[in-house]
């Protein structure tokens, strides 16, 4: 099981002192968060992609390349990469390049984006959201697997004798997750390719996500990639911790009450009861996160939202230290002890490469036997 932090990259005023970080401060803060994530023993840092204020991360591979150079072990990922409005050729090139530089520590998560105006800025139409996600990803998938490609589709200029460079590191494409909070079509897409499915469950009650993940698992099995319980599932989480849960609630409440996503709506108590948000002691976070497994089955990646809603960087870093120091070691042990042997661990480049080599060796043996 892989644990990590995902960041939206919002520039939000701290409601307790009215201070708003500059874009430069926020960008550097995201890097600091990523470095801290590795330092405390977590596995993954993922950045969002946005093209409008108040968000800073418009250029994820630039940021991840910089982080790659300053880390050794951390998996660098996205949450999400906009498969609808980015050119799939450029995604293929950018992430293949990043994968070489990062020595195989890169994977990425496809998403459609939830900001309507972004589509026309990039010459697209939001009503084509699903068809764009389907066609663009199919092209990306082929670009990484076919050396020379002829291609024609609805949304992009055709390609003739095109080779996307650099070719994927070790001949195996980066692992891909498909993120969705709503659309069964995306669960179907992830299942079809045998890719991962990430359900960002943090803002809604679990019932909806149970249906979505069950659909993905069933279809994963249908398409012959393995049993339903072997499908690769990722989940979100959102926590704020202090030793005493009362201190946590008191400190986090002003951030909750003014947060861009859920502020001015339900109370902190109502929201924590109905969604994965946990504001309390590390022990409460452990208990709530272990419940995810009961609802969604054994899963492979758990990402936490930590730096948002105007929380100061020092507080965020303290939170990540508690996560790495007190919460995740317990979760690792618990999840690992419950995971059946046939359920895969979190995806890595090394494992994908080994599996590809095994398949190639098996193919040679079969070829020899056939002669």
């Amino acid at each position, binding site marked *: 099981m892989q644990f990590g932090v995902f960041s939206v990259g919002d520039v939000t005023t701290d409601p307790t002192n009215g201070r708003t970080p500059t874009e430069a401060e926020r960008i550097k803060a995201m890097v600091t968060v990523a470095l801290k994530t590795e330092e405390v023993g977590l596995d993954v840092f993922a950045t969002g992609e946005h093209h409008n204020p108040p968000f800073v991360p418009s250029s994820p591979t630039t940021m991840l390349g910089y982080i790659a150079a300053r880390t050794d072990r951390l998996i660098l990922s996205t949450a999400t990469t906009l498969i609808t409005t980015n050119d799939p050729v450029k995604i293929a090139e950018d992430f293949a390049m990043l994968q070489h530089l990062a020595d195989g520590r890169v994977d990425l998560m496809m998403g459609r984006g939830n900001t309507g105006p972004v589509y026309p800025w990039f010459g697209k139409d939001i009503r084509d959201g699903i068809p764009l996600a*389907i*066609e663009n990803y199919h092209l990306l998938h082929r670009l990484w697997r076919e050396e020379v490609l002829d291609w024609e589709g609805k949304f992009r200029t055709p390609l003739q004798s095109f080779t996307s460079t650099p070719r994927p590191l070790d001949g195996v494409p980066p692992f891909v997750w498909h993120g969705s909070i709503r659309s069964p*079509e995306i669960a*179907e897409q992830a299942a079809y390719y045998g890719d991962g499915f990430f359900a960002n469950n943090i*803002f809604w009650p679990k019932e909806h996500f149970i249906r979505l993940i069950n*659909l993905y698992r069933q279809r994963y099995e249908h*398409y012959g990639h393995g049993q339903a319980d072997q499908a690769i599932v990722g989940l979100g989480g959102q926590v704020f911790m202090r030793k005493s849960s009362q201190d946590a609630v008191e400190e986090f409440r002003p951030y909750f009450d003014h947060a861009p996503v859920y502020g001015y709506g339900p109370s902190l108590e109502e929201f924590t009861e109905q*969604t994965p948000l946990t504001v309390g002691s590390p022990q409460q976070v452990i208990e709530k996160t272990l419940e995810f497994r009961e609802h969604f089955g054994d899963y492979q990646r758990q990402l936490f939202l930590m730096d948002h809603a105007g929380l100061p960087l020092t507080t965020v870093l303290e939170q990540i230290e508690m996560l790495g120091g007190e919460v995740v070691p317990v979760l690792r042990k618990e999840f690992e002890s419950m995971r059946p042997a046939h359920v895969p661990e979190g995806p890595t480049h090394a494992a994908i490469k080994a599996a590809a080599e095994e398949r190639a060796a098996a193919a040679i043996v079969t070829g020899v036997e056939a002669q």
Partner: protein
Amino acid sequence: MSRRSIVVVSGGLNEPSTTRMLGDMLASATRRVLGERGVDTIVDVVELRDHANDLTNRLTTGFASGSLTSVLDTVAGADGLIVVTPVLSGSYSGLFKIFFDVLDRDALATKPVLIAATGGTPRHSLVLDHALRPLFSYLGAVVVPTGVFAATEDWGAGSDQALPVRAQRAGAELAALVAREPLPKPIDAFDDVPSFERLLGGD
């Protein structure tokens, strides 16, 4: 004896509320006519005032609380609806509109609906045909021909007793639609996911 469910959605804000009284009057008129046809009727009443906070929370968060979810399910599962709103600023109340904004888009498709409203003066009575009827047409409901508007004078001592007569006619119209076999429910998105080959083919 066959059985049908009617849900009254009342947007009344006061206690006691004439909006609720009108809803009850229409429900009993409908129940009476269904009873004459040998249909047993279960009536549920939803007072939107009780869910005011949950409704605005639903707008900000995108999900419904447990109790609001069960109310939305009750309305979606009804064989017929009686919807009653007070007239505020010349139209249905904001609370009334929020409820139908957060109801599933297809929940009212082909559902028989009786529209009704209350106001201080009969000069507001066209709210039925200028505001409520278009809203429920948009939602795909089958709106019965007779809408019922009750002004203050309809409840007063000098009332001409036209209101009960009109309520009776509207109730009979709703009963006639509710007594029929219900049309099939719309297909759930999760039960009808196109296979990936079809998605890829651009169908």
